[in-house]
């Protein structure tokens, strides 16, 4: 079985509990990149797939080494490597308006396919496109296929235009899994599909999902022990990528949950890069992905003002678990279908608005902040209308900022800081006015 050994942490758990979960994750990610780099030498086939609607348990059933192109792009973004890659892709003919994840990926290929950790990334043997609302993903894989001439298989997931999943929709996805996806993966990998193996991975997934949800829900406490956006993107790392269903992910979430529960008991705030946040002043809900090229600077603009993100939609982008969905080992293919259909990118506007309003209420947040991504139409289209609707329904103030995923040229620190500070002061002023009205 192609699972990864549980990495040994080098730090003493007693003193730096929090660091442990992060270190653990870093080791997992590095290990995965190493596995990818050596996959072909060790006779393994390589799959590439996207985060939303990823069928990780299924891919593990065929012993694939698993690459996730958006994760590669964002890792390159955080390591300040994406700017050059994007410019290379633009020189190669891609327009300035194209999704910058795509350009970072294509630029990486042009630069010799060296991955974020410095190890070479292998050419994929199969591209599994689980189509969950992002049209660009389809074009992206089309470009990759053109370049590498590799096998592609597409799972078409119908959009939740009416805001619900019908039995027909579920059957349609299951049918494709049975008739198209599984046979293709069998053929490419040479491994026979074993549904019991899938069930076993799903049992692991469920445990990890349970713990992840407990971690995300912990932000309902005051103070919140986590930041559900900047910290959240770390917490979702393993489960949204190559590890969901693997025992080390289960272990990671067990450790993480224990750490967070300890923080709740101790009434501690979230850990930021500059230490623990002690004075929680603002509680926010954030919609939209973060900027990766200036991740730390961006985060700092929040924590230095005492702002904590208690819930975010982005931390649901690889699976919405906090409203009850779990992978189901008793109905493995059906639950894979359900998982894909329920992805955040596959939800319609009213569902997204409901979700945000629910977060504002359940997490006792002060307001909504939207980080609108320049080059991501899937996320950004309609965001202003969502903002207005949420404002109207909740009466809570909302604000809008703009940046990009991995194009450093689109991050204007002064402009974003200006808007954020204005927003925080606006919340404060409104609170003061409400307080004055009460007295």
């Amino acid at each position, binding site marked *: 079985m192609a699972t990864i050994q549980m990495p040994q942490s080098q730090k003493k758990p007693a003193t730096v509990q929090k660091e442990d979960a992060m270190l653990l994750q870093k080791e997992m990610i590095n290990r995965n990149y190493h596995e990818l780099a050596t996959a072909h030498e060790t006779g393994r086939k390589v799959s590439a797939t996207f985060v939303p609607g990823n069928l990780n348990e299924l891919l593990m059933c065929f012993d694939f080494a698993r690459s996730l192109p958006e994760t590669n792009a964002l890792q390159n973004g955080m390591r300040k490597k994406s700017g050059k890659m994007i410019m290379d892709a633009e020189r190669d003919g891609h327009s300035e308006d194209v999704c910058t994840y795509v350009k970072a990926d294509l630029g990486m290929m042009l630069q010799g396919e060296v991955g974020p950790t410095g190890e070479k990334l292998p050419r994929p043997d199969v591209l599994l496109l689980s189509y969950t609302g992002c049209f660009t993903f389809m074009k992206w894989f089309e470009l990759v296929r053109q370049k590498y001439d590799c096998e592609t298989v597409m799972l078409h997931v119908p959009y939740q235009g009416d805001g619900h999943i019908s039995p027909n929709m579920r059957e349609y996805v299951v049918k494709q899994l049975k008739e198209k996806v599984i046979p293709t993966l069998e053929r490419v990998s040479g491994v026979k599909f074993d549904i019991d193996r899938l069930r076993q991975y799903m049992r692991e997934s469920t445990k990890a999902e349970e713990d992840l949800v407990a971690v995300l829900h912990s932000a309902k406490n005051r103070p919140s022990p986590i930041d559900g956006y900047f910290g959240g993107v770390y917490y979702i790392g393993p489960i949204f990528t190559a590890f969901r269903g693997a025992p080390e992910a289960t272990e990671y979430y067990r450790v993480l949950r224990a750490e967070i529960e300890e923080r709740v008991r101790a009434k501690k705030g979230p850990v930021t890069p500059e230490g623990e946040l002690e004075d929680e*002043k603002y509680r926010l809900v954030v919609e939209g992905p973060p900027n990766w090229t200036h991740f730390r600077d961006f985060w700092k603009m929040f924590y230095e003002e005492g702002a904590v993100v208690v819930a975010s939609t982005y931390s649901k982008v690889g699976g919405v678990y906090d409203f009850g969905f779990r992978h189901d080992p008793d109905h493995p293919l059906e639950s894979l279908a359900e998982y894909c259909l329920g992805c955040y990118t596959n939800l319609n506007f009213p569902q997204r608005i409901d979700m945000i309003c629910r977060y504002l209420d359940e997490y006792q947040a002060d307001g909504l902040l939207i980080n609108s991504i320049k080059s991501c139409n899937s996320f950004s289209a309609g965001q*202003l209308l969502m903002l*207005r609707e949420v*404002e109207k329904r909740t009466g809570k*103030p*909302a*604000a*809008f900022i*703009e940046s990009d995923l991995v194009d450093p040229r*689109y*991050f*204007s620190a*002064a*402009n974003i*800081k*200006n*808007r954020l*500070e*204005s927003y925080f*002061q*606006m919340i*404060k*002023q*409104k*609170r*003061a*006015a409400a*307080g*004055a009205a009460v007295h």
Partner: protein
Amino acid sequence: MRCFIGIDLGSTTTKSVVIDEERNILGRGITNSRSNYDTAANIAKQEALVNARFHLFRGALKKSGALNGGLDEFVGQLERDFRLEQFTEQLADLEAVCGRNVDGGKFGDFAKPVVAALEETFRRLKLEAPELFAPGAKRKSDFFRDIAGSRYLAIGEEVAKAAELRYDFLLNIFDRSIIEVENREYGDSISKNLLAALDRTFRVLPEAAKRGEAIRAPIQGVLETALEESYVIGTGYGRARLPFSKEHVRSEILCHGLGAHVMYPHTATVLDIGGQDTKAIQVDRQGIVESFQMNDRCAAGCGRYLGYIADEMNMGLHELGPLAMKATKTVRINSTCTVFAGAELRDRLSLGEKREDIMAGLHRAIILRAMSILARSGGIRNEFTFTGGVAKNEAAVKALRDLIFENYGEMTINIDPDSIFTGALGGATFAWRAVVEEGKLAEARV
């Protein structure tokens, strides 16, 4: 007396407003932001405090009745004389710095003729200085750099030509000297300059001089009243650079919202177009910001865009509006991108369009962009207040009025001639609130 001060550090200009305990505006000051925000903030504040003194002089003189009927003429003359004193002082400073900079200029054998040319240039500058501040004299700008610079260049060119000396020697010295002079503060000499100005004024207005003591007494009284800086609030693009604690800094969006509310209490929507920001703000009945939108990192369609256009056309910034008003039609302009502004302009000129018609199109394009930002913030509600440097531009205002009418119908549109001070006024009001309403403010609870 207790004063509450707001300072708005913009990307182009720095503004300051001083208010008193009754929230009356005592004075306003403005200076160019330079690259030195600390100095700009201090100078703007000083200007506002000087302006406040004049406001108080006027009040005291009026009360004393010493200048029956001649009050406006007298105060106007005094203010011009004071500006002249200030200008003369800075000019002497510039001359000294230029003199020192000849040494480092590596002029070799030319050092002596350069010194002579400088002496002649400054002699003429000093000679013509009173004309610059004569009643009705038009100045392109009130900033020392602009006034002294334009005259130095003009006179320097003549002097160099006559002396058969290279003009760029003089340019070089000016460029190396002006920043030092510009960044010097003359706070200590304000009283001295005022008293000297008073002597000048009495020479010009002998009728007033006859009542010398009756006039001097209230002025002296005002000069002896300390203007106590009870609380200062900084805002604007450069606010993080102010040497203030966080408690003394407010977002410019909040300050503009509050400033507009103070100017026009029924304001619901505010549009501010400044040097590099366009902001659309919705405020409630108390002047509290409800929502806002602004341009992203790109400064397309902001004041700076007009600056580039002015440079491209070889015109002064304030000449663009009047030129656009002469248009007989509006040329369609597609891009409000500052980088492409020159290209678009030349493109239209090459197609044979008239300059004024292109200008009308450019102004409309800016306002169209502002309209889009306004729509994103929640649209325009009655009353609507337009602020910022661009609100001084009549062509921009015309385009705005037209587009508001087309899109929203009849609206009350407020534009204050001092709208450039809106952010600073909001800051001063925040400063006032912090002190006077202390306790009522819930800041401590957050």
